[in-house]
């Protein structure tokens, strides 16, 4: 099942994750190249978000090994993954700091590059510089005019963009997007596709997109991985995967296997 990727920045071999008797991930091999967009799809409960949580250090896998940037990693905390390995993620249910402004939310992303005592010592200059960087990022994702609004007052699609902006503020090398198009109408989803492509073109990073919206996956990903019941059942470019009999079976049931 494993397709070799040149210089993978992230490599998981036989990763499994169990919660009591529930096998959320059985054994998954997964590679992410330095500059590609990987789509991660699968029916509900197939382990996509668990895989993402394992990648981003929120869960500890029960079996298998993970390699980051070519170095074998004892499973690191999400803080160290963010600071040392340039890994950023968004969440399936939007998680913004509800009482803070959009700008402050994105500034929180900047913490990956700074120490906690930083602007105590050099008060002023550094703060202004980071604020300028944040404004650039907000401009980039297209919500610069809403920078001073409270984050949770924004429209749903804009809240998604704040999350993406916050992830970009950590200047990641690997960006994990967990269902970025959930709850969006087709036009908003199209804007999102454009945004993901723009991020990929203008910033040198790899992106993993978990998505149920096939339009988004097929239009962004150069490679698609299909999970079902904690196993990787298909792997390849979007066109091959969408006609794969196992994938059709997983999504539609046995009857449609030959459809």
């Amino acid at each position, binding site marked *: 099942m494993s397709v070799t990727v040149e210089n993978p920045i992230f490599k998981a071999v036989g990763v499994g994750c*169990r919660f009591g008797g529930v096998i959320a991930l059985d054994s998954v091999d997964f590679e992410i190249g330095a500059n590609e967009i990987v789509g991660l799809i699968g029916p509900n409960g197939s382990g996509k978000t668990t895989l993402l949580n394992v990648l981003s250090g929120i869960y500890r896998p029960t079996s298998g090994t993970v390699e980051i940037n070519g170095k074998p990693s004892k499973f690191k*905390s999400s803080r160290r993954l963010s600071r040392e390995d340039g890994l*950023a993620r968004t969440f399936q249910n939007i998680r913004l700091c509800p009482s803070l402004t959009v700008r402050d939310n994105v500034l929180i992303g900047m913490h990956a590059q700074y120490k906690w005592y930083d*602007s105590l010592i050099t*008060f002023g200059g550094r703060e202004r510089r980071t604020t300028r960087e944040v404004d650039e990022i907000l401009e980039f994702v297209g919500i610069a005019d809403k920078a001073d609004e409270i984050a949770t007052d924004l429209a749903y699609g804009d809240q998604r963009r704040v999350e993406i902006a916050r992830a970009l503020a950590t200047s990641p090398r690997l960006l994990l997007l967990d269902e970025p198009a959930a709850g969006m109408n087709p036009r908003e989803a199209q804007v999102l596709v454009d945004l993901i492509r723009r991020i990929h073109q203008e910033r040198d990073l790899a992106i993993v997109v978990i998505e149920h919206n096939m339009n988004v996956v097929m239009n962004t990903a150069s490679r698609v991985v299909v999970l079902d019941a904690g196993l990787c059942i298909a792997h390849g470019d979007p066109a091959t995967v969408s006609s794969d009999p196992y994938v059709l079976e997983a999504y539609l049931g046995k009857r449609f296997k030959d459809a």
Partner: protein
Amino acid sequence: MLNFVPRSVLRLAGVVVLVLAFLLPNLVQPYTVRVMATILVFTVFATGLNLILGYTGLLSFGHAAMFGAGAYIAARLLLDTGMPLIGILAISTVGGAVFAALVGLTSWRVGGDYLALVTLGVGEIFYLFLNNADKVTGGATGLPGVPAGELFGWSMLPLNNLYWFTLVVTILVTLFVWVIGRSFLGRSFLAIREDEVIARSHGINVPLTKVVSFTIGGAIAGLAGVLQVLLLGFVGPATFTVDQSILVVEIVLVGGMATTLGPFLGSLLVIGSTQYLSSLSDYRSMIFGALIVIVLLWKPGGLVQILGLGGRRPTVPRTPLSLLRRRPAAVPQVDSIETATAQEVKL
């Protein structure tokens, strides 16, 4: 309430208030100066708690213990040594900080209402310690007759000098917390209050930052303790009960969590009313209880929000009650049989 007033007028009014504060001893009776000094001491004390409770969102009911640690260290040093006051201030502040850091370590394991219980226990233990360690703390009678020290040859004995000193310390501490609130450190406090998982996955060292918050808050409380000793000339356990911790939580909530002026406005109302409205003292708890409920439900910014004095950049928590039911990190409880490793990675 003051939203219609232009900000420039408010700023001018602030300057006028500041000048009046410095001229106060020439304008009013000594009793009023004493009350004002008490209010300022509690402002400093509450500013320390504001960092822990308002910014970092950690509910602490043991803040009077750090206050007391600072006060007792200062009293012992003033009684036993001829150390200059500046040294005593430094030692008491460090003492409060170390004590608070130790208490803060418990926040690695517990959060939300459990942390409130732990700190409540610390406050109670400290009170019992004060009562029973006769040799060090003087037991239930406390340490009377603490001499006022000298700061660079400037005696703290006259009330006016002490008032001015307290005023300067209050302004410096408020400025210090204002700077912190605008720095990376302040923002990591706010991020932790809002959502720990977010803080962690964006590179913030959550356990360390919590301890730092406790340490700075405790240091400020220790400093307030010294001022309290200088003002009263006496320390006794009754000043550092859990009631005092609850009073300061009250000040922070009423004044406005995570605001710069909140601690001052809160202690102005809470301490001022206990001094001047003593005829209402039977109803005090009732009135402030109702006020806190109102603040928590509708005006989380407290007096600062009600008066419309808040900054342009909001830091006030929108749902303060959520501090009590801190949601667990995005991790389900794991059955222990075979998968103890599938737990959340802690640090």
